[in-house]
């Protein structure tokens, strides 16, 4: 066997052994075995000066290259084994909770829902108007074409502070104030807290409404339908439809009640053929009241630029609690106001 063949044989054997080593001690033994003072390759390299000049260069190069390969293999293996040791020594229990813990807070479900509704109408070009909750009887009823004898004004239906002042029963007075403050065109929604003397699972003495008002030249009932369709799809899903049913309100003419097609079922029935519990099998959910602003309401603000012969408008109103109830299956409206965090936290992470 020639010297160069022997060199390559030693190199292959050393590299194979190094790769097979599985602890640092074994690796150290291999280092001494192949590169130590008494090892074959260094000894061979030490004999090079004694070789024929013709062989010297080739054997020298091959020997040095082999030593280099073995050293690199040792280095790589050493790093490998060291890395394995880091992983083993510093392993942690990844199943422990993160720390320090960061509690998940949240805004109230009513706030979330109200903001969702606001955002839909902001996108449609409406502004958000606000007004006092302790409100004039005049703005709450008289300005809205609500007759002095209308039962909603009775002390059984409205909280009174004194004969001229009430807790608003709807946010409509905000619309009156908005019309007094700004001539048409006007596009506003009025979200806020309102009060009526009821207290049971589906009526709380305080609740939240979002009312809307659009007054402009040429606003139509069809525009109301399109606006509420956009709202219904944004809030309840892109496949929703709306159904307008004729109704009666003192402040609108024509007046309508608006149903949104149920998002929980197919035309009233569940997959298993049972009746939908949400819409009671009707396929429709009563969501809001609306209509074209009654000319008598414009008469009240005529001096601020609202001439019923020049402008028309629509108005609508909806309950925030009801929409949240429909979307989240809340069984009792009183849960909203109890302050029990076991209820409120359910809607924290969305």
């Amino acid at each position, binding site marked *: 066997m020639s010297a160069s063949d022997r060199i390559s044989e030693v190199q292959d054997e050393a590299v194979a052994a190094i790769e097979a080593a599985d602890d640092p001690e074994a690796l150290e033994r291999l280092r001494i075995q192949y590169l130590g003072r008494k090892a074959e390759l260094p000894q061979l390299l030490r004999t090079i000066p004694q070789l024929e000049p013709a062989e010297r260069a080739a054997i020298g190069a091959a020997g040095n290259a082999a030593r280099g390969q073995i050293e690199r293999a040792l280095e790589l293996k050493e790093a490998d084994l060291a890395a394995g040791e880091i992983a083993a020594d510093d392993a942690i229990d990844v199943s422990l909770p993160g720390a320090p813990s960061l509690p998940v*807070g949240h805004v109230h479900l009513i706030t979330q829902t109200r903001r969702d509704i606001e955002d839909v109408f*902001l996108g449609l070009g409406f502004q958000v108007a606000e007004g*006092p909750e302790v409100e004039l009887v005049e703005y709450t009823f008289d300005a809205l074409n609500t007759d002095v004898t209308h039962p909603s004004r009775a002390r059984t239906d409205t909280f009174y*502070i004194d004969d001229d002042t009430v807790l608003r029963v709807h946010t409509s007075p905000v619309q009156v104030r908005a019309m007094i403050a700004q001539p048409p*065109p006007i596009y506003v929604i009025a979200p806020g807290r309102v009060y009526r003397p009821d207290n049971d699972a589906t009526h709380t*003495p305080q609740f939240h409404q979002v009312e809307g008002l659009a007054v402009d030249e040429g606003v139509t009932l069809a525009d109301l*339908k399109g606006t509420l369709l956009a709202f219904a799809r944004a809030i309840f899903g892109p496949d929703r439809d709306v159904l307008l049913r*004729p109704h009666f309100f003192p402040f609108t003419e024509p007046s309508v009640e608006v149903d949104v097609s149920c998002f929980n079922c197919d035309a009233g029935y569940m997959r298993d053929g049972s009746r939908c519990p949400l819409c009671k099998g009707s396929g429709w959910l009563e969501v809001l009241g609306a209509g074209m602003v009654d000319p008598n309401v414009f008469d009240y603000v005529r001096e601020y630029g609202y001439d019923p012969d020049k402008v028309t408008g629509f108005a609508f109103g909806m309950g925030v609690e009801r929409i949240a109830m429909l979307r989240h299956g809340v069984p009792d409206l009183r849960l909203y106001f109890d302050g029990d*965090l076991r209820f409120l936290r359910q809607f924290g992470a969305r």
Partner: protein
Amino acid sequence: MEVPVSWLREYCDPALDSDQLSERLTMTGTKAERVFRWGPPSAEKYVVGRVLTADRHPNADRLKVCTVDVGDAQASTIVCGAPNVAGGQTVAVARPGAQLADGRVLEAAKLRGILSEGMILAEDELALGQDHTGTMVLADGVAPGTALGEVLPLGDDVIEFEITPNRPDCLSIYGIAREAHAATGAALAAPPWADDPLAGADGDAGGVRISVDCPDLCPRFTARVFEGVTLGPSPIWLRARLLAAGMRPISNVVDITNYAMLLTGQPLHAFDLDKVAGGRLTIRRARAGESLETLDGQTRELDPEMVVIEDGDGPTSIAAIMGGARSEVGESTTRVLLEAANWNGANIQRSALRLGLRSEASARFEKGLSPGQTAEAMAVATKLLIELAGASVLPGTIDVGGPGLPPAAIELRPQHVNELLGSDIAPSRCRGILAALEFAVDGDDERLLVTPPHFRARDVTRPVDLIEEVARIDGLDRLPATLPPRNGATGRLTHAQGLTRRLEDALGARGLSEIAGWSFTDPAILDRLRLAADDPMRNVVAIENPLSQSLSIMRPTLLSSLLDAAKLNLARGAQALQIFESASVYRAAASLADEHHGLGILLVGDSRASWRSREIACSDFYAAKALLEAVMAVAGVAFTLKREERAFLHPGRAASIHVDGTRLGIIGELHPQVAASWELPQTAVWLLNLDALAPLAPQTVTYASFGSFPALREDLAIVVAAERPAAEVIATVRAAAGPELESVELFDVFTGDQVGPGRVSLALHLEFRAGDRTLTAQEVADRRQAIAKALASNVGGELRA
């Protein structure tokens, strides 16, 4: 309004089943609440039977074993509990397989050992009366086995409608029939008052005298006199209709008044004329202090806004609300004075409310009926009294007030209809719809002249009211869905609205839960909060008619709901709580109320920071202040705190919050007595007025260069008297450090032997940077010297090496 469908179909019979009809009427504005079945669901297996024998049950004293011919070759054996059952009677029989009114299916069954092949029926079992005491005995002459449905009304669908207050004309069978006609196109039969037996007959109605002293409250009063009246039960068909419509049959005369009311919408009242003293009635306002004993035996205090009907002996009834016992019809009645009057709706509503008395009649009157309806109801009742009570009517109708002015014509441009609706409805369609609703239509296609029928005169007075009629009958489902023009519309939140959202989110992001508490609270909280008698927070908005004392004032602070929520959650097992509320608070004001939008937090309870930390997160002043700093940083404002004592806060741990010299709120730990009152441990709160904060918060942020030269850092340890506020020390450092001081951070506070008694060491981390050069160590050393000097002279502080 509960409408038996068979009754409705007598006047309008569309080719729709009850459900379809209710849907169509709902879509045209007469909302059906529900459709239900009255009486047996099906007429099958109900037959006429003839009792052949009725013998005592061998095993039961109260039962009889009957053999009944039901038309089969062989008689059926039926066990019957009715005491009056006897051989020879013609009776109603339910055979095995019949569906009973309660939904059960009748089966042949052994009763005390004897197989009963069916049931002999009592009135209530067929929903034809309330009588359960005995078998209903039918007239003879009907062959056994005849289907019972041929002899008796056997069950009906009933649609319950929600009638809006503007449509009292629809509180009647014929009114609903008119709607069904307009909504479906099915023919409308002539009205039931079309053939008034007394039409045109002159006379003085037996000389009865009626005078109306208050025509404003009683626009029309009509009356007729009947003689030879035989009081007794009503026929089965009439009782069946009243029961299906939700009314109790009483006697033929009373039932006829109720039947006429249900059919026409106009209430009537029958007086026993022989008990009307002096044969006269006067309609007048009650006198102040007057009282009256009503039918229910109660004495009612009246006032001059209420109307009474009196005869020669004084008041007999409260007009339109409740009759009196004195002139009530009874078994001895033979002469009847029948009244149909029109009353002022608002007045009746007020009186009914004041008296706490509401009747089927007053509920109709208070919505404002048409004076024209009195004649309609009178005609229907006259016919029935003659037919069913053997009465004869004396010639002459007393009519005080008359039908009133005919309704005025309204001008309607068909173009206007489409302009308001966004529709494309032809003028001919407008005409057709209005005509179907019994409006008289004149004029041309550019301009219709429309006159409402008398029963719509109150609610249809303007073109827009006519447009509503066209819209609802044409169908709102045919309207396109479009968006309004939105001229000049810009949808954006105001600065304050956007800021409120950001601050709420900032608290949510830091782990706080938003609550929505009651705006109402209990006046007792003012004492529980230890407020002094002259504390401005006692200036509350009080509700005149609260639901209860504990909900009788509007909260003057968010603390009421925050504290209540904290107490509730701790009572339900929570260990620690971080909550906030963002809502209005109220104080009394000269007009309306002084309201502002408040933002408040409450922290209570201790908790470990995490499983790997021994550190305790406590609900103290500094925890609350950290959240205040976060919120103020989000708002983009710098704030200061000033020590301030509030009755409900710990006197040593309370401060007011200020921005740019404006007081925005308070922060502190709860006074231990207040905390105890809500059963809370150490609790920290702050309350901010967002209405006051918003204008102070920057609306936009403008870029500021942060410089490219390196910063030099310098740490200081400053020893001062322990009572010296850290803020003063920092302010002194800032003032002395010169314009290159970029930031100051307090990173440690300690006391102890090294700093000496009554002294505290504050460790500050300073960063200096110049915008135009790299600062030298010498410059910073000079600043340090200047700071040391200022500390010594201003706050008695010294720098530690």
